[in-house]
């Protein structure tokens, strides 16, 4: 029983942890390029915010899956 709980918690952690790492990696690349872009063209601020924000969906989906694992797997 305890091992099951541990596994469920571990799976939930993986479900959010891996997308979080992926999001961080993607945002670091986009953020660096975005900062360079803004130095030359500040008028593209909105576009850069959008580009940086796009990979966040991964971690949100990870959060949903982690929540489903924690609350629906019995």
């Amino acid at each position: 029983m305890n091992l099951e709980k541990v596994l469920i918690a571990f799976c939930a952690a993986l479900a959010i942890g891996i997308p979080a790492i992926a999001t961080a990696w993607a945002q670091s690349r986009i953020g660096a390029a975005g900062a360079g872009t803004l130095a030359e063209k500040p008028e593209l601020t909105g576009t850069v915010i959008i580009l940086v924000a796009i990979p966040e969906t991964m971690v949100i989906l990870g959060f949903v899956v982690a929540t489903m694992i924690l609350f629906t797997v019995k």
Partner: protein
Amino acid sequence: MIIRMSKIEIAGPKDLLQQVLSLLRELGLFQVEPAAIGFIDSADEQHVRSFSLDEKTTIERLYLEDLRLKIDDLVSLLPHAAVRESYIDPPTVIEALARMVDHHTVQARELSERRDALQKERVELERNAVFLSAVASLLQSAKETPNLEFIGLTVRDPAMVGNLREAISRITDWKYEFQTGTAGDGTVVGLITVEKAIADKVKRSLADEQVPELTFPAAFGSMTFTEKIAYVNQRKIEAAAEIEGATAAQERFAHRWLPLYRSVRDWIDGRLSLLRTTASAYETKMCFFIHGWMPSRDLERIRGSLLRSLGPQVVVEEKEMREQDLEHVPIALRNPAYFRPFELMTSLLPLPAYRSYDPTPFIGIFFPIFFGIILGDAGYGLVLLLGAWYLRKRFRGDQRIHDGGTILMISSGYTIFFGVLFGEFFGDLPERLFHLQPLCVERRTAIVPMLIFSLAIGAGHVVLGLLLGAMNAFQRNLKREGLFKALSIVVIFLIAAVLASFFGVFPLVLKRPAVLLILFLTPLLLFAGGILAPLEFLKSIGNIISYVRITAIGLTSVLLAYVANQLGGLTGDVVLGVVVAGLIHGLNIVLGVFSPTIHSLRLHYVEFFSKFVEHGGRKFEPLKK
């Protein structure tokens, strides 16, 4: 809201063009359109040509452009000091200034060069002082005599000292003294004491080994090290005083002449802009034409002003706005006072197209609500309300920060409202201290209901975006795009119904018809949206799921607040507990400003606006002073 614009043609006798343009510039309501396309019928093109300036005006333009360059040159040599405003009428002094500008430029350049030279000397002296002070400490143990020579040097790599010592021993046959020390900036400096007879040999050897000997300015002449140190200290004081004098002289010059030159430069700019605008006008044998755009509501104002000032000879005509003109109409936004601060957020995006929607009112309505739901703590809301009040009061002159303060104030109002609903005041303090239960839901434990709530918000928001997009597409006669968006709304509702039936919210018996209807609508979706329709539709579903962040970010805020109170309680001491909890709550409030802002903005920029806002408009830039 996007202001309704009119396509305007102004015509009149050629000799009135300058007066018309001056008046239009005074009013600041009319944007001149240099392109003739859409304004002049192809049948009339042969009778119309670009307006050409007469000889006198052309000479005036060249004269003003030349003077403008000279004034720019002079101003660039003067310090950027805040100076008074000149009240002299620029046209009355322009000729006198044109005669004096060259003389003033020479004077300003001399002052500027003098100051630059002194500053350069001071930097050089500072650098020398660093080395000399290090060498001075070495000199204390070496007595200066006429037979001895002192060679100062900088050692790039401290590990080289041993090699150097060995090389000097070989050259001088052990008749030397070599001391090292560290300068104030960390550089290793050395002082070699040798007999004058072999000093040149040592110097050559050092040069061969690429060890830089300390070099001093020519002014140092043949001074000894001790004299050099005294000279540097004395000269540093003198140079500082001379720099002060040169700066004061520059400032006196700037205070005396800069206001006048700036005022004349502004006047020249205005006049040149008018003359350049003339190039955007057109002429026939007798008349001039100016084409452009202006807000429709100001049309009568411009008509009245031109009539009063220049009589009925100048005619203002509103032309028919054709389909192809809509792409060229400049965009001006005007929103009610409540929404105006939110233009700060929409200004980060490109302007909307004329036929699209201004996103400002939407962001003004939904942004504070999302912010409030995410932060949802009455205590934090009160703190932010105070912060917003301070920002608005302190930065009354800075419009952007003032607007930011207003947005924060509105958002903190919603934060307090949702905080009351969620029963949160600095986390779970109401429950801990007074055993009060939340009015609506406890976010910390009700994760699944909050997830469903945020998905419902997402569905509502995305459906609203699709609805606006569909309406806009139908208005623009883009039937397939409109149909695709309308069908997407229906399918989203059907999917929501099917999902709801699993939770018993929707009658289970209607599940099968809903699924059949989805299957029936799928080919229609493909027809309307093309081959990428499934992808587009899935994107909409992904957009709805993205709203889960409202719960996710909110949950982190709740849990951090809970941890703050829990840790505060664990300390067992009231003062320490308040300090610990206060620090963590402080961190949470700082995060609570940035996180909800960024995520609410993202939900608008990416999920919501992509459904109905078409970007690509150009800014309305009227002719004005």
